[in-house]
């Protein structure tokens, strides 16, 4: 590696495009958001910067605070479900033969190449009242009824004769289902990467020494793949918290998330300072989580030494 002073001109040629670009077209826009978040709306289009903290205070009262806590809750539940599903899947992949392993990994990464919007939209056709889930349930319902009829206990009204379709769309269930559906690869991949690297003879040793499968799982495997789990949690939780498309398309009026409130400030309510403040709260939460994550990592590395 060279010191930059040795070849000043070459160094400048290499560094300037990227540096200037990210400064002008990323950090400058962020600075604009930050400044506007301390402003007030003067009329429909103009904003005066008054240095007020009102926008931040507003985020913590009444309905907005409820939206905040609800978003965090939805993201937490989503992360937990992703974790529970990912563990066995990652486990199976890392213990499969090489050919199947590659196939399964490709199958998990492939949805990444599909548009988030399209994947969310594709769930509507599955979950809606006349969607496939309800159609399948109805089919079993009718079969069940005909069996009861055959057995001669139809009149006992064990189950309702008419099938009532379930409301699977436009509620918290559909939002969580959609988020799990979209973000689960982000949990499987990091867990798989760690699981694939660690020495499998630890498991064998633990089983040999008389620990059961469950004890081995909690005492050996989970502590060892812990870093993968933590990065998975971060990779799922952060985009969930800032998600907008999924709650917008799959959620009802009671399952709004921060992203929807932000979008409304810019697209319909026209309250830019408030929207900017909400965006920055989201950024602060993200940075906070990443700091905690890197501190945990440092601590772990220290402990190892």
């Amino acid at each position, binding site marked *: 590696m060279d010191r930059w002073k040795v070849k000043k001109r070459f*160094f400048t040629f290499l560094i300037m495009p990227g540096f200037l670009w990210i400064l002008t077209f990323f950090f400058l826009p962020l600075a604009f958001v930050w400044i506007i978040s301390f402003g007030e709306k003067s009329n429909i289009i103009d904003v005066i910067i008054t240095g007020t903290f009102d926008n931040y205070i507003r985020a913590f009262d009444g309905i907005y605070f409820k939206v905040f806590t609800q978003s965090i809750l939805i993201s937490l539940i989503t992360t937990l479900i992703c974790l529970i599903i990912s563990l066995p899947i990652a486990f199976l992949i890392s213990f499969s033969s090489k050919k199947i392993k590659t196939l399964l990994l490709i199958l998990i990464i492939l949805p990444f190449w*599909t548009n988030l919007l399209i994947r969310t939209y594709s*769930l509507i056709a599955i979950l809606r009242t006349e969607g496939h889930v309800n159609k399948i349930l109805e089919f079993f319902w009718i079969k069940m009824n005909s069996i009861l009829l055959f057995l001669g206990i139809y009149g006992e009204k064990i189950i309702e004769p008419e099938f009532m379709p379930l409301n699977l769309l436009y509620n918290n269930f559909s939002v969580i289902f959609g988020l799990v559906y979209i973000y689960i690869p982000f949990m499987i991949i990091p867990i798989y990467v760690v699981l694939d690297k660690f020495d499998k003879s630890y498991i064998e040793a633990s089983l040999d020494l008389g620990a059961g499968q469950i004890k081995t799982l909690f005492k050996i495997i989970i502590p060892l793949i812990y870093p993968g789990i933590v990065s998975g949690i971060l990779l799922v939780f952060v985009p969930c918290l800032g998600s907008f498309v999924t709650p917008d398309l799959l959620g009802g009026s009671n399952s709004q998330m921060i992203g929807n409130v932000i979008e409304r400030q810019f697209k319909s309510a026209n309250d830019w300072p408030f929207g900017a403040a909400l965006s920055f709260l989201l950024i602060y939460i993200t940075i906070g989580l990443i700091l905690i994550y890197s501190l945990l990592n440092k601590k772990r590395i220290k402990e190892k030494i």
Partner: protein
Amino acid sequence: MISKKQLILRRGPLEYSRIKWLKYFTVLFFIILYAPIINLIIFSFNDSKLNIVWRGFTLKYYLKAFQNETLILSFINSLSIAFVSTIISTIIGVLAAICLWKFNFKLKNYYELSLLVPIIIPEICMGVAMLIFFNSVNWPTFINWPLNLSEIIIAHISFSFPFVVIIIRARLGNLNKVLIEASKDLGATEWTILKYIIFPFIKPALIASSLLAFIISLDDFIITFFTSGPNNITLPVKIYSMVRFGVSPEINAASTILIMVVIISTILIVNFLKYENNSK
């Protein structure tokens, strides 16, 4: 006595892939992961407006999509944005990656860290930032193509070139420095080293990263949604405005086209990389 057959059937301590419930669970998982998308593609060929039951094969919704002028225009916009932003972000990304690999300088760690910020902050925050930025600096509104896409292109470069930097930087980490030293001993200039050693070495990573930049630009919805006006919508934004009116086979057709473009470009590049490797 355990017969030979039983011995084969019996699961070894580490053969977790042979646990039945784990297998069924994984199969079920992949079915749920793929069913909605496959369903979407199949029902784009369905001859029914309501799109609930199968009523026979038809291509009429594709024809309808191709006759829809704004849809076609938005598709052309999407492709041109992806094309331009890929070229620019690849150039910027390669230069930055070589710089990070080659030079030591003060605040280098901070520069590397700052390149990660566009990747980690929530997309909606970046969309908001772009909206506020272009409004505050009074970015001129161009009417003519392709200048009317400038805002979206700029926003796309901002989030895609850091990916290029990461991929190329990782590849350069594997380059044997002895090669560089040898060529310097033999009197090569920086430009010769760049042309004859570095570029051939990073070529696969270059192609892979520009493909990634192309696809994330083509697929982006949220940031484009905030930066686009009524005159410069992209295909995802158009699909979004159609989805607001409910499920229709036309959306399925448009979505299928977008999925296919992405899949075909992936296959092309993968084949190209294979060909490159084989010819060596």
